[in-house]
């Protein structure tokens, strides 16, 4: 999958590229408005990560360009402003998602995966990881072809894990993903542990390998055993 990262802050774009490259995305970076326009005109991408706070022209204009040229790339907007107006404008102008800074890289990764799924495999949105088969349209999970009942949070966790497979995900990131802005920094993350424990048990009950590993003090990792 090919991604274009439009971000003028080099440290940030470096981090994003670092993380996504190891998830087997091919990443290109444009740090200027004109640069980005040139790339979009000449190449095709599966998803574009767009920072609308560009110094030399708002990213929203870029979005307009994309739509004017009937480009079909998925676009996720990054913004430092967390302004509702921006969010609505962006989505109305055809962006597929909106993420406000600061964000967790696993979060960005999961959202990119979701956008690509929606854009590419219309009608056949399945995530397959070994014996796990997730139907993202119907929100059904089957393990070894047996249907598995998951709670909403367990389902979201599983999708999140698989989208970031092979990566260490911090407890913070998981909490932010499941509870979003509602959550204030809690004293401890026990409540996450409960959900993960339940998910693990269900996976193992249905014959999965032990994919979910907990890493002391840091977080969790979903990978081959």
């Amino acid at each position: 999958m090919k991604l274009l990262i439009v971000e003028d802050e080099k440290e940030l774009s470096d981090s994003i590229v670092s993380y996504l490259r190891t998830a087997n995305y091919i990443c290109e970076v444009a740090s200027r408005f004109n640069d980005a326009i040139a790339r979009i005109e000449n190449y095709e991408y599966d998803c574009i990560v767009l920072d609308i706070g560009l110094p030399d022209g708002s990213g929203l204009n870029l979005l307009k360009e994309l739509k004017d040229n009937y480009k079909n790339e998925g676009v996720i907007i990054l913004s430092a402003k967390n302004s509702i107006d921006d969010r609505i404008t962006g989505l109305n102008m055809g962006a597929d998602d909106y993420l406000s800074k600061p964000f967790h890289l696993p979060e960005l990764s999961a959202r990119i995966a979701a956008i690509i799924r929606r854009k590419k495999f219309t009608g056949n949105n399945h995530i397959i990881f070994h014996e796990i088969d997730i139907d993202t349209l119907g929100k059904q999970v089957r393990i070894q072809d047996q249907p598995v009942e998951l709670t909403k949070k367990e389902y979201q966790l599983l999708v999140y894990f698989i989208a970031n497979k092979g990566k260490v995900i911090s407890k913070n990131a998981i909490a932010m993903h499941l509870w979003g802005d509602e959550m204030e920094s809690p004293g401890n993350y026990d409540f996450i542990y409960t959900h993960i424990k339940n998910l693990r048990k269900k996976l193992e009950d249905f014959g999965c390998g032990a994919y979910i590993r907990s890493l002391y003090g840091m977080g969790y990792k979903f990978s081959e055993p």
Partner: protein
Amino acid sequence: MKLQSAYNRGVIVAALVALFAGGVADYFLIRYALLHQLDEALKVEEQEIIDHVRINKSLPSPSRYRDQRIYFLETSAPVQRTFRSIHVYDSVEQESAVIRELDFPVNAGGKSYKATVIKSQTETEDLISWILAATGLVLLLLLAILFAANRFFLKNLWMPLYRTVNFLQGFKVSNPNVFSKTHTNIDEFNALNEAVGSMTGKVVQDFHSLKAFADNASHEMQTPLAIIHSKMDLLIQDEQLHATHADQLQSMYDAVNKLTRLNQSLLLLAKIENDQFATKETVYVNEICHQKMVQLEDFVFSKKITTKQSLMPLCISINRILAEILTLNLLNNAIRHNHEGGMISISTSSDSLVVANTGVVTALSEKILFDRFSKAGRSDGSGLGLTIVKRICELNHIDVKYSYHNQMHQIILLFPESIRCAVDSIKSL
């Protein structure tokens, strides 16, 4: 008291004093003048008598008229020339009267006499009374006119001032009305308006630049925070990290999270001040409470907190996002400051919302509770949650209070009539 009343009061007191003093002076002056006139008349008689004696070498005959009497008394004692006023009883008229008497010595035919000329002073006294009455009436009339004129002129005169005061009272830095410097005839008011105009202009300007600065500062902070977040997300991929590093990383994550949250709270407060949440709609507070409790159930569960909900329909007109933030902050606060196995009780009535929680066993200071950044006891929140609650309440005229009752910390919100709406009985749960 009002300027007009104070001014009138002063004027009336001064007028009354003047009236009184004037009246008194008037009385004495008139009295003196009239009496003097009377005495002159007496002196005329005196002169006539003396002339008569000089020419005729004998006394004229005593006379007795209605308003004048002259008689002579032979006496050997020395006589002083004196003017006197005497109260007598007039047997004819059957009433008391006043007379003015002039005694003087006169010699005629080798004998010494005391001549007495008497004139009635009653008419004079009557005259004085009439004059006083007339003067008093005129003065009262003057007073009344003065009073009425005062009222009328004052009102109009001070109108520019009242306009300026009105403007200042309604002035809000975040949403200023334009001050129309209407030109008046009065220099002082023009000067005042000039000063008010320039001062408010400057205040608004300063406010905007400060706000812009705060806004920009907060926005600028988002990017470095994003960088830190992203670097840490990358850092933890290295599984060679020693266990102690893991602990430090977790602390770093928490600290950065807190910083992020703090920044977002500040931005939120700025937006609230900036009136960016102006659109209002009908909101059922009880429904929002219910939704938020569902969202927070994991946290409640992990802290083994029991909840009690009594949610009567409560419908108000408010910005929906602010209502959600308000409720969320109150509930988060109740969870955070609770102890393990504690209790939270939420209740809504037709005009109030009460969120109560167990926690620290002593009552908290209400002032500190809502103060920015104050933290009652240990907690990991950013401290701004309740400040935001308070600000939202202030903007929507909601009364918010804290009380410690039955070992529960209660935060009580009272919604005034002005923002309540009729409960749609079909819609209410």
